[in-house]
């Protein structure tokens, strides 16, 4: 970027920083939700599977937060833990989908995972060719993980959808309930357009068709009805979240904040 003027370079760094936080926070918050299942899964085997997915996502989050801390010019947040534990709700950049509570409902958890992983797979496939080497490396590793998550979640949504009457009813309700949160994943904005134009970010609109095909295939095989578009609940990318995030952060951050500056 030798030919880039200093102002533009600063803008670029700020953009990548912001974009990295979006990616990191999605993985961080979803991994937290999955971790809440520990010792609560419907079958011992599934306890292991949920934790594996959660650990993959946490690994992605840590790599991305570390990178974001490097890029950020804010001395307040010097490492992954500062970013995870000291930011306010409004500073988080995750989408609303990943914040949605488990409600002790395994079906809801798997639908959320299906919706998210069906987005993360094509996102990471494209990002692994990003001009930003760090994002490309995280995505190249993450895409293999995401493919497995997608396969696992698809398998469950199909089994629950085409299982018993009760499971069909319950998982259809989960699909309907989470569907409104999908739109946000594919919304573009100026930041994404700027980074897309220089080959750093993946333009979300381009992912939508892939997502639609994958999810429709799964829901159809699961004998579930694909909902039609509805209202748009909020914009996590801009820091306007659902109520659930505040409670999640209160629990996640309290101990770290109780001991300022301590090492763990």
């Amino acid at each position, binding site marked *: 970027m030798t030919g880039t003027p200093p102002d533009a370079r600063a803008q670029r760094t700020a953009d990548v920083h912001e974009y990295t936080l979006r990616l990191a926070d999605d993985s961080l918050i979803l991994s937290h939700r999955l971790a809440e299942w520990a010792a609560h899964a419907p079958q*011992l*085997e599934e306890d*292991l599977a949920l934790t*594996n997915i959660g650990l993959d996502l946490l690994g992605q989050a840590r790599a991305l937060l570390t990178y974001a801390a490097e890029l950020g010019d804010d001395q307040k947040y010097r490492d992954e833990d500062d970013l995870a534990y000291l930011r306010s709700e409004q500073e988080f950049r995750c989408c609303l989908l990943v914040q949605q509570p488990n409600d002790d409902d395994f079906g809801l958890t798997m639908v959320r995972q299906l919706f998210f992983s069906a987005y993360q797979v094509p996102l990471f496939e494209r990002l692994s060719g990003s001009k930003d080497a760090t994002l490309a490396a995280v995505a190249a590793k993450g895409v293999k993980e995401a493919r497995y998550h997608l396969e696992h979640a698809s398998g469950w949504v199909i089994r629950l959808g085409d299982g018993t009457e009760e499971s069909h009813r319950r998982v259809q309700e989960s699909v309907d309930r989470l569907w409104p949160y999908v739109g946000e994943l594919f919304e573009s904005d100026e930041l994404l357009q700027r980074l897309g134009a220089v080959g750093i970010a993946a333009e979300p609109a381009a992912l939508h068709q892939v997502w639609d095909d994958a999810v429709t295939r799964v829901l159809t095989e699961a004998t579930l009805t694909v909902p039609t578009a509805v209202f748009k609940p909020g914009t996590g990318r801009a820091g306007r979240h659902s109520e659930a995030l505040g409670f999640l952060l209160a629990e996640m951050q309290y101990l770290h904040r109780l001991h300022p500056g301590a090492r763990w």
Partner: protein
Amino acid sequence: MSTSADWPARRQGSEDPSVADEGDDAQARRDRGAEPWALFEVFVRARRGLSHNHVGSLHAPDPTMALQNARDLYTRRQEGVSIWVVRSTDITASSPDEKDAFFEPAADKIYRHPTFYDVPDGVQM
């Protein structure tokens, strides 16, 4: 009667109330209202060049899930490059009662082992 390799040939009766009465499978099923998930035996190839080895078992509703569960359970520390899962009930095993007839005839055929043969000193084999 199950013929699984690691499964007793017969469900042995037990007078221990903690084992037989309360823990009765039928009772457990009534409580659950469904058949329990099937037992699968898991075989893992630790690395290329080795054969698959039996590592244990797990429960799953079907073979596809069994394979995913096996991956999460038995290879989470990179213990394998390939996995087989087999329904435990699909394994036919030799019976301990056949032990002598099955295996002892091989015992005196020591000429099948390389150590049976003398090799002159200095020969590299």
